[in-house]
């Protein structure tokens, strides 16, 4: 998606209205669905036990959010694991991606390993991790790391392959040292690809994390919250957990990271094929 002409900044009022409309549309459509659901339960069209009313779901979420409730501990723990796993994925994923993309030995050593491991679903690693590490934050953090690092590695390799050698020629013509080329050309050149890789990594990492939290029966975390709720038949909390997971996932991928993507990848007109 590249812009053909110089973008014109719209007046502030237009931008506020535009933003409100873009937020309002999904809110209205989801709100309508919830309203129908609520009415369906109130009028007994559907089973209120298996499909509790949204009002009941929100009530139990609110109760858990207050004093004596654990909601924020669950949210906080999941987010902490996600961030820790992403940090690892960014560091190692970038290094491995650069090694594969730029060096002969990197390609020889890492590429076959990555290609072989890629088809394995992230969750298949959980039993081994549980055996080696046990029920510990490290297990879930590593699950996020595994899920996200493949995305980061792949997009960075793509980024390096897309960079034409001419860009390096231009820099060398200006007398750039190797360090200058590293920071001013390579690092800046792969940044848009890293950002998109992180965005995809967060998507897969979040999903894998929740599932691992359920499997690993860890303490706290939204996945655990659902698992725990199901053991006690607290159905509202199961749905509540799903709501939280959905909203947080949406905020992370489509708001936070999308914003960063817009401020960099799109502004620079870089096409990141994925």
């Amino acid at each position, binding site marked *: 998606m*590249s*812009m*053909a*002409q*110089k*973008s014109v900044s719209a007046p502030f009022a237009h931008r506020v209205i535009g933003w409100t409309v873009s937020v309002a549309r999904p809110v209205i459509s989801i709100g309508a669905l919830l309203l129908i659901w609520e009415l369906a339960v109130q009028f007994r069209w559907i089973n209120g036990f298996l499909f509790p009313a949204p009002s009941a779901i929100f009530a139990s979420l609110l109760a858990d959010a207050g004093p004596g409730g654990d909601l924020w501990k669950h949210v906080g723990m999941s987010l902490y694991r996600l961030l820790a796993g992403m940090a690892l994925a960014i560091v190692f994923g970038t290094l491995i991606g650069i090694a594969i993309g730029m060096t002969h030995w990197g390609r020889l050593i890492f590429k076959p390993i990555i290609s072989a491991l890629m088809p394995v679903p992230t969750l298949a690693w959980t039993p081994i991790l549980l055996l080696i590490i046990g029920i510990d934050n490290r297990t879930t953090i590593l699950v996020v790391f595994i899920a996200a690092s493949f995305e980061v590695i792949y997009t960075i390799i793509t980024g390096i392959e897309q960079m*034409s050698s*001419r*860009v390096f*020629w*231009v*820099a*060398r*013509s*200006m*007398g*750039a040292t190797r360090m*200058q080329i590293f920071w*001013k*050309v390579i690092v*800046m*050149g792969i*940044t*848009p690809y890293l950002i998109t890789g992180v965005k995809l990594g967060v998507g897969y990492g979040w999903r894998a994390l929740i599932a691992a939290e359920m499997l690993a029966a860890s303490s706290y975390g939204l996945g655990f919250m659902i698992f725990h709720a199901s053991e006690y038949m607290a159905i509202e909390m199961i749905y509540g957990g799903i709501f939280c997971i959905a909203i947080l996932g949406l905020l992370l991928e489509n708001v936070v990271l999308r914003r960063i993507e817009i401020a*960099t990848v799109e*502004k*620079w*007109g*870089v096409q990141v094929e994925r």
Partner: protein
Amino acid sequence: MASRPKIVAENVQMRFGHVTAIENVNCTINEREFVSIIGPSGCGKSTFLYLVAGFEKASGGKISIGGNPVTGPGPDRGVVFQEFVLFPWRTVLRNITLGLEIQKVPREEAEARARKWIRLTGLSGFEDAYPATLSGGMKQRVAIARALAYEPEVMLLDEPFGALDVQTKNYVIRDLQQLWIEANKTMLMVTHSVREAVLMADRVLIFGARPSSIVADVKIDLPHPRDPADPRLAAYQAEVTEILSAEVDRSMIQSRP
């Protein structure tokens, strides 16, 4: 007006595997001269330019700039490519200050010098634009300004107008002529257009079919800046075209199975 030699090529040869692209290339380009290189497709004219730029190493022979042999790329030479090769994550201003940043020129001075070239290349108002939003002609202007900003001794241009449409091309050609007069630099330009070569250059070096050497050195004895409608240009164009066509025919025969 006698001027000293700036770029000297002696017995330059370039081989890629078994294929010899250019050989026996001998030429001298003097200070402040504008020299065009023209030749059949695939004859190695861009190869020669990249050897002068230092991006490739010659298989044989020697190239020197201002007396110093070429061992690699360096800030004494500025390069402009057909595909612009701008840095998409930098604004126009920052693309142009890049060479100065690399030379550790302080930020204020670098920006002041960049702004001068922005003005001279007609880019005023676009300092904070990103390359993705610019047209081809603007991008090439940025590329030219970027190469001139760090004051190289020599400018090397590889088919600079190749990616531009005809109308834009005419404007950029006119601007480049002006820039060359202002900047007073030695310029070496590879082109496939006889019209461009004759319009802009003091001398046209015609490369032959592969393995290429310089088959002709046509001096264009007209003052600068030149008007494309000048009838005297037509005579030079005809002369260059005649020599070039013979070489194009020869290269076509070569490639026939």
